């Protein structure tokens, strides 16, 4: 499916069939972001569908021919950040603490070529919510530390600390072999 100008017009005018086609077309990108941040299916659904509603209502601002998936990825990321910020105590989640800091891994993780998708999601879900968010934004979405700092209204040190914590934890999970890994 190619997102052409005709499709955009039909979606804008409320053509339900084409809108649902677009939903199916976009679902993979939206859902792959949602599962990395939310553990429960209902929460994932809320993120995906709210993001898609924003896509539909702002479809006129998309220029046909440009990268559609990048555009909707930006929207779903914004939705995730907004959702996180809805929690009025979200800043507390970023409090740095060494209590749960993981031990440095003793095994070089480079021996592993890749990790199974589901395993990766499971490992990420082990991380505390704030750490998971920062690590996802930094390592997977490609945000810079400064951008994360501005988006979440936290300090640069806090961002760095959470990235470091995430790496430690993920390494330790790999070392402990709690997650099935592919060689």
């Amino acid at each position, binding site marked *: 499916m190619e997102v052409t100008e005709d499709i955009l017009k039909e979606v804008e005018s409320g053509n339900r069939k084409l809108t649902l086609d677009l939903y199916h077309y976009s679902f993979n990108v939206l859902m792959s972001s949602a599962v990395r941040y939310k553990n429960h299916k209902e929460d994932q659904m809320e993120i995906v569908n709210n993001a898609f509603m924003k896509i539909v209502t702002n479809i006129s601002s998309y220029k046909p021919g440009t990268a559609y998936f990048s555009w909707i990825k930006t929207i779903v990321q914004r939705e995730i950040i907004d959702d996180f910020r809805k929690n*009025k105590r*979200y800043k507390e989640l970023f409090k740095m603490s060494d209590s749960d800091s993981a031990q440095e891994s003793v095994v070089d993780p480079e021996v592993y070529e890749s990790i199974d998708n589901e395993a990766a999601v499971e490992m990420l879900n082990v991380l505390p919510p704030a750490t998971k968010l920062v*690590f996802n934004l930094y390592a997977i979405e490609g945000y810079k530390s400064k951008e994360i700092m501005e988006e979440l209204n936290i300090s640069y040190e806090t961002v760095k600390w959470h990235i470091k914590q995430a790496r430690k934890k993920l390494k330790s999970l790999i070392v402990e072999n709690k997650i099935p890994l592919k060689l």
Partner: protein
Amino acid sequence: MIEDKDHIDDIFKESSEQQSFKVPESFLEDINNKLDVLDKKKKRIGRFWWLALIPVLMVIAYALWPNNNQTKKIELLTDNNTVKSSKQEEGLNDSIQLKESLTISSEDSLSQNMIKESASASNIVVNSAENSKTLSAFLQEGGKVIGDISEQDKPLWLREELKKQEKSNGLTSKNESEIVEPETKEEAFTNSNLEKVTESRISNISATENVQNKEEGISTIVDDVSTNADDVSNDVDGVSTNSDSENTTITERIEETNSSQIDTVLVRDETIESDTIVKGTEENVATRENSKLNSDSISTLPGGKNSNERSHEIQVFGSLTGSYSKLSLAGVPDEFSMTQMEDPLQVSLQFGAGYNFNFNNYSLGTGLLYQKTGEAVNYETNSIDVQDSVYVSGFYLDTIFNPNTQTWDTVEMVIYDTIGVDVIVGQSFIGKNRFNWISIPLNFGYRMNLGNFTFIPRVGAGFDFGIGKNNGIYAELIDQGLIEHQANRFVLSYSLQFEIRRNFERFHIFVNPYFKSNITPVISSQVQTRKYNSWGLNAGIGISL
């Protein structure tokens, strides 16, 4: 080390890119519901968008509306004893066509006589519903009848007549005529000659004149003139002849050339103090009905304005307006925690300009208006006092008050102790949510005149278009933090107004208490629906176009 970190990041990045998902049914069901809501919203907006075109169409319709009120007014302008003519009187007989208009205004007896002569010659009928009197008879009674009219409001010719009457016991007509001072160069005749001619003309009047003397006094001297084309010619002949004999110059002023009517109306404040305007018609003169003329062709309204006239005016105004929100909850009222508001009435400036199109006593108005609505909110860290309870056991003492360490019986009683607990919230907002609007009002009103004042109750609709960011911050649900909502871009409102104005010729000043209320919501979310009421007192100035 750096490579190690990057490798971990890459592992997870690659894994995220390999994922594929199937759309669950529950997801589809939810997105369908959300799309249904969106469709309803679109339809709701689509239902009202055309209303915004109404003011524009009104202006266009007005601009293109054909003006059917083209009438020729023939004003017989007289100033004291003078009948002016832009043409030489010799040429009047031949040159005045039916389509021309002639205006005669009279201020003294001579003028009246000439009008009467004209009426006589052209079979002009002056109707009255109650009494029939000759104009001369009326003039004789004038002093009595118009006794209630202030001296200042009386026309010059009437004042002169009154003066004549006051002096009638001893004065000759010659002396009377001397009271009237000639004011124009065209007066080539002497006062004595004038009086003679006047008296002779009065005696020769043969026209039937019906003077309508209404309950409120004489509000109309002449209600109607019906004539035909030949009569008009005769009329002109008569005027010309009289003018000849009196060495009077007749001034004819043709105001409009495409008239279809010949009317006689009273001008200059409509009634006794009026001048006389004769309008000519080619087709309708003979057929005009007295009854119609009684009510339509001659203005007898206070203020001298015809009842079916149209007028246009523009206004500028401003005020301080107070607004407050009307909040309704959707679905989850028990969980709602956002009603902690202070100072709900917000005062802000509004200003605008308006255009009114008046016809008969009705008024249609539109314009542009800048307005703010909003409320103050206080979402701060809450301090909540709670009561803790403690259960204690009681012990019995023996009779000599020795402590008995063995529990004889246990009585549990609740002891309340008040402690303070701070509920820490991560976000707080103390401030004002303000929404800016450019509004196009569309009003309908009814005008009630009372002297120099006009009262206009109005009802109307407002088409409000949001400008700027128009975001509001609200706490909707417990433990869900603050949410920023954008106001709807278009909101429909209704308004009630009561304008009170003081008229000064073309200008007027006014105050206008009003109440305005949103019909469609400003903020609509899954939790709340928020509309605003506003009220205030507009004050401004207007000018008639």
